[in-house]
């Protein structure tokens, strides 16, 4: 049996795979910068819709959000990638990932932002309106800033999950970090590229995890 180091940190394999792994890491970062704004935009739209307190809107919105919370993102991705071409619609792996994330991630962001908006007392809106701000202005300058601050840990936690979820794009052949690592692994029959990819994800996301842990602990201390 070869040594642990030779198997999991094989320098030759890592050196050979480095260029494509680096490319994959950049792709993962780029993909995150695409899917997070998409999810946030969709989520904000959902949260704003939920402020319209109308029965005709409330139930369909809740059903929409629950639907995506119950639906595995990978299944959605495969459905778009392998199912839609049968209808003559070929979105390509990038288009599938963008749409899949918009649907899935925005539902989660929407739920968090809705909770945030609901956490701002009605008096804030009333006071803002009485100073002459329009409903939209009150929402934008008074309610939303407080809402976002109240649910900041949850927003960040969602963002962390969204970045991690980009690894699923490897299944539909989008050349991000995990995809490139698996390519390198299948060519060299050596798991080192996957270990390096894991390390890449960890180094990229550990600061965010630490920050989150602190924010969450502070939130709990505040509730005590």
């Amino acid at each position: 049996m070869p040594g642990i180091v030779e198997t999991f940190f094989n320098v030759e394999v890592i050196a050979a795979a480095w260029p494509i792994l680096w490319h994959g890491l950049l792709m993962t970062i780029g993909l995150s910068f695409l899917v997070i704004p998409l999810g946030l935009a969709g989520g904000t739209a959902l949260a704003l819709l939920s402020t319209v307190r109308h029965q005709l809107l409330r139930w369909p919105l809740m059903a929409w959000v629950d639907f995506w919370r119950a639906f595995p993102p990978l299944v959605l991705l495969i459905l778009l990638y392998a199912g839609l071409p049968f209808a003559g619609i070929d979105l390509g792996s990038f288009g599938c990932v963008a749409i899949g994330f918009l649907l899935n991630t925005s539902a989660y962001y929407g739920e968090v932002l809705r909770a945030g908006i609901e956490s701002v007392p009605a008096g804030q809106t009333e006071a803002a309106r009485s100073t002459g701000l329009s409903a939209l202005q009150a929402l934008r300058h008074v309610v939303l800033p407080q809402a976002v601050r109240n649910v900041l840990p949850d927003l960040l936690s969602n963002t962390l999950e969204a970045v991690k979820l980009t690894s699923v794009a490897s299944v539909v052949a989008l050349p991000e970090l995990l995809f490139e690592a698996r390519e390198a692994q299948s060519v060299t029959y050596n798991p080192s590229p996957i270990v390096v990819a894991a390390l890449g994800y960890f180094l990229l996301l550990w600061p965010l995890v630490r920050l989150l842990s602190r924010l969450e602990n502070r939130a709990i201390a505040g509730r005590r």
Partner: protein
Amino acid sequence: MSGWQRFAEIFLNADVLARYFPAIVSGFFVTLQLAASIVLTGIAAGLAFALMRSAGLRVLNWLIIFVVDLFRALPPLVIIVLIYFGFPAFGVSPSGFVATWSSLSLVLMAFAEEIFSAGITAVPRGQWEAARSTGLGYAQTLAYVVLPQALRITIPPLTNRTIAITKGTALGSVVAVSEILSQASSAVSLSANPSPLLLGAAAYLVLFLPVVVFGRWVETRFAWKR
């Protein structure tokens, strides 16, 4: 043929659906089994680590925090692939089921530890002191006074997290676990028809939608009092 008929012919093809229904059902039970084992081991391990952390031993706590951080930062699919393709180098070849189960259990363990730990810290110190002063031991205080209060507030976040992680059982299709998605995908390639995918999607909804609705109920039932 109208547009709807053509759509139904392709995506809800009755022949194909009937032919692959048993395969999807067997996938459903594999998913169910996988999800149940993940929930069991993940939450049990998370609680065990949270209890160890409550003892307040500094070096042990650093170790626990590092492990929790590690499995919070790594994407589940990366862990699955790492275990599935990496372990054979040690001479053990885990099956796809074992790789998926262990990976997602580790992820759920990390999140559960964090949530339980937060719950335990949220119980005011006075509760500990009062319980100890009545003569209860450390373990008794934990079991009869602290945990009952801590667990109550951990239920909503834990439920949501558990749902999100067990949905990840679909990732098992990448390492050849014959769960719903994998059954549906192979049925699609065999039949050259996408209907099994829709059936698979429906199977996931049957499994997870009730849990999501239950989670919503739990959220309001056990909500923090603000």
